């Protein structure tokens, strides 16, 4: 049994800060832990508070957190720069079933296709999945990445786009058209409708609830099985260990049993 206090965070140094958009920055923290794509940490500033943020990279040496400046805590985090300290505890949650998917692909030779869908800031947790796939490229089959952003100014991880386009079937859409860039315009569903999937395709999703509402019928119509769709849920967890109750959803704690749920289990979740 663990004897460490789960509420006690660690002081962690900021290694670098990359500005992605006007209000989103990626913080690289000196927090060498074993993490899984889709898991999250409680990150905060002493005296202000803490909030749950998903990993947006996969590495044993450090963690990257892509944080949008929307509230008290994230605002305080954004005021910090390289060399300063944040407090972190975690990782929490189950994460995406990357090992299960790669195991099916390698040992059972099911020739899994993998589709990663990210909407807005939901692209951040997807980046950790992409990192994982990149580092274990042989364990996965064909990989398609579909991202949707609001407009040109809100595009995340622009630097990675070139590399991803070479390695994977990478596409993204913008909700509003722009003349700065040649790209698809519309919702992510557009990309899905055009794409062709094999029977055993696994779909990993992270995005706002409204996006899920439109994506799911498209996926189902394409013949993707419900048990092959994995969705990451958003909640404001306070404790991260299944005690505080804020993230309780149909008797499951999003922080402990999630945040990633299989669609066939999660589709009847009611708020």
């Amino acid at each position, binding site marked *: 049994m663990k004897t460490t206090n789960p509420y006690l965070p660690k002081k962690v140094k900021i290694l670098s800060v990359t500005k992605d958009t006007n209000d989103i920055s990626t913080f690289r923290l000196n927090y060498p832990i074993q993490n899984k794509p889709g898991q999250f940490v409680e990150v905060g500033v002493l005296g202000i508070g803490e909030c749950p943020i998903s990993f947006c990279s996969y590495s044993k040496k450090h963690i990257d957190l892509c944080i949008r400046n929307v509230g008290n805590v994230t605002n305080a985090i954004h005021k910090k720069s390289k060399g300063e300290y944040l407090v972190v505890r975690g990782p929490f949650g189950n994460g995406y079933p990357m090992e299960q998917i790669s195991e099916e692909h390698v040992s059972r030779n099911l020739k899994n296709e993998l589709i990663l869908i990210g909407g807005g800031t939901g692209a951040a947790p997807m980046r950790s999945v992409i990192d994982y796939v990149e580092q274990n490229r042989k364990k996965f089959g064909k990989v398609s990445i579909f991202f949707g952003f609001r407009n040109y100014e809100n595009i995340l991880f622009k630097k990675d786009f070139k590399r991803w386009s070479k390695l994977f079937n990478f596409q993204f859409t913008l909700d509003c058209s722009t003349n700065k860039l040649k790209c698809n315009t519309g919702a992510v569903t557009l990309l899905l409708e055009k794409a062709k999937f094999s029977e055993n395709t696994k779909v990993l999703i992270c995005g706002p609830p409204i996006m899920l509402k439109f994506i799911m019928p498209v996926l189902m119509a394409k013949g993707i099985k419900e048990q092959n769709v994995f969705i990451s849920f958003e909640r404001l967890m306070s404790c991260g260990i299944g*005690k505080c109750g804020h993230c309780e959803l149909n008797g499951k704690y999003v922080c402990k049993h999630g945040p990633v749920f299989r669609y066939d289990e999660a589709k009847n979740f009611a708020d």
Partner: protein
Amino acid sequence: MPYLLKKEEFTRFIDLLIPFYNVTAPVKNIKRNISEFKVLNTNEGNKLVFDLPLYPAKDVFLPRKEKLFGFDNGNIIDVKHDNKQTLLFMNRCDINAVHRNDLIMLDDPVDLNYKEKRDKAVLIEIPCRITERCVCTDMGLIDYYDIKIVEIDNESSSNDKINGKRSNKGNYILDIRTKKGEEVIEKVKNRLSLEKATYTKPKLNLFKPKQVKTDNKEVWEKYGKECLSCSACTIVCPTCMCFTIDDHLNLNLKSGYRHREWASCQLLNFTKVAGGNAFRKDRGARGTQRIHCKFIYFREKYKHPRCVGCGRCSAACPVGINIFEYFRSLK
């Protein structure tokens, strides 16, 4: 082993315990004409009443506001809680509430702040005084006490035979269930004239689970119209243990502490996320969460209902919402 405690010695029994423990027990508040849980001072054993106070004693284990750790100049300082052993005199339903809270707080990963207090607490079950709000009979209450005080109110009870001709009416039996309970009795045994006794445990009522559909739209619409979202029900509930973690910063802007505070699923901001969106905007939806949490979700996880049938929520509700009626009306 059960002991016989004479009624004349009952107050002395409590008085003897007070120097060793923080004795928390229901006490009559004459001014407000209610009973409430209080820590007894020296020789206040006579103040103990057998009653079910409206406010539960859950703050013994989860204080309204509890420091998790302190910080100063960016350094984290672990808070050491210095807790005395606590004796809790509670009704059967409240003791079961501790059991339900144990299930969740001591589940992996263990909540150390809770465990620290829980390890030092001895639960003593007092005889029930059934009030009009009690609904515990079908809630599947279990034996979870360390010591149980049983009132002998029946002349023909088996205990009379052991002690011969003398009537035992009004005396008490102390049933010891755990080692913790034995240690308590060991401390005061020599200064009381305790006698050996026998005690047959009554049969337990089991909770009858009920399958409920998730869409009881009319029921929840009705709830949404009735509920004022004041959160009184969750404040008085002995098993409502939800909390929010927040920081307190001192005026020097350098030191402070992180604390947790009671939260309520009946309030709008309970499910608020970044950007101002809340998942349960509707009062009916929040009612669904509360009633499902009490009767369905918790049982699925831990095999017991989270409700212990104390009926406090119905008593505290300003518009008289009764969760048992709502649960019954679910299809």
